[in-house]
């Protein structure tokens, strides 16, 4: 069997624990062009998809990685004798805010959630899902938070741009406001009622 580029890349992906991208692969296969590597990655993905096996080559965290299909999760969990660890609802909501509005300040997260998030931020940092990306040049130099590569891996996100952007969410919210019925009538009713009594 000839050592085709596809097979070499397949071997690397098969052995790797982390998602691999074309640039990384290129650093080990300097004789090949990026375009050829990208082409080979695409071909492999299509091949594995069409084979319909229990695992597939998935695009995740800006790279490619072999992952099992979700329907086999119960068997795998049984083999590992574990149940998946879940994030609390509060942690998930905080993570969602950071993921969709990053880079974001802690005070902005707290404004959106209406509660202190110090403990939750610590948990998310410990799990490697978020990180401090910088400090804002405001009084107190507050910390700015963002998500990590690990976040992309855990939540099966191809890259951070594939999540809807902050602006889109703002638009969604303001659209809802615009379609909201005006409520001045109720305001008047309430006033009239109290003036009668």
């Amino acid at each position: 069997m000839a050592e085709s580029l596809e097979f070499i890349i397949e071997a690397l992906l098969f052995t790797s624990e982390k998602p691999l991208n074309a640039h990384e692969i290129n650093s080990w296969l300097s004789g090949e062009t990026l375009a050829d590597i990208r082409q080979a990655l695409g071909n492999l993905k299509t091949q594995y998809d069409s084979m319909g096996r229990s695992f597939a080559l998935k695009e995740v965290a800006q790279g490619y990685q072999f992952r099992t299909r979700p329907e086999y999760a119960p068997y795998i969990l049984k083999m590992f004798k574990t149940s998946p660890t879940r994030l609390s609802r509060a942690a998930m909501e905080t993570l969602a805010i950071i993921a969709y509005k990053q880079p974001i300040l802690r005070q902005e997260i707290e404004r959106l959630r209406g509660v202190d998030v110090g403990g939750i931020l610590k948990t998310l940092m410990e799990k490697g899902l978020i990180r401090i990306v910088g400090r804002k040049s405001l009084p107190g130099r507050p910390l700015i938070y963002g998500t990590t590569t690990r976040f992309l891996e855990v939540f099966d996100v191809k890259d951070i741009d594939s999540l809807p952007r902050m602006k889109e969410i703002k638009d969604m919210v303001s659209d809802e406001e615009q379609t909201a019925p005006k409520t001045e009538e109720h305001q008047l009713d309430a006033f009239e009622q109290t003036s009668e009594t």
Partner: protein
Amino acid sequence: MDYEVKLEIFEGPLDLLLHLIHKNEVDIFDIPIATITDQYLEYIDMMKALNIEVAGDFLIMASTLIHIKSKMLLPDLTGQDDGEDPRIEITRPLLEYMRFKELAGELEERELLDRDVFVRHLPSYLQSQMEDWEPRLDVNLFQLMDAFKRIIDEGLPGVQLTLQPERWSVTEKTEVIIDLLKEAGPTFFQRLFSEDRSLSEVVVTFLAVLELVHLGLVKVSQPTHESDIHLVLSIDENGEKLDG
């Protein structure tokens, strides 16, 4: 004895508000502010009665609700009514909050690693070599601190100064003393120690002198009690014993 029961029923004031809106089956864009405010305050009283810690955030929201309620009851006498519903002050954050709850749900439904999908894992001896693949800036403060500690533990190149202690054996020292006596002739005891740099070397030199005396190679004398001890080689250059 007091039994303190602490329950985390509502995550925060927005959670409580949403709960009340759902419970009363009211439109979020048309919140009956008087009803909701009353119920909200009832819950806070209930939480206090149940010994649930009422965070300041709940009280801020309470004051906001009361403020909105009063604004809606009183006519605007300033004539600067911009027509904006005062309830927007809570409607907007509630909508945003709901949106993120929804997004959190969407995240939760993705094919999560180690819950829905699984990847191959390397044996630990190969893992350390894979760490280099991480993006260069994807580190947190704790990782940086760990890295710094490792450098300190390993010692800084260029600043290291390791002193190797000199190790002398008695045999080596006897040879040195014989050479010295051959070259310089009769010598004072003190001089034998003038080059010694550590206590252990002094001890070895002293033992070497005793050894030389024992072997009859050196004669040791002290002319007077106050004077220094005198050493004279009792062999000639060929190693023959000298008389006297």
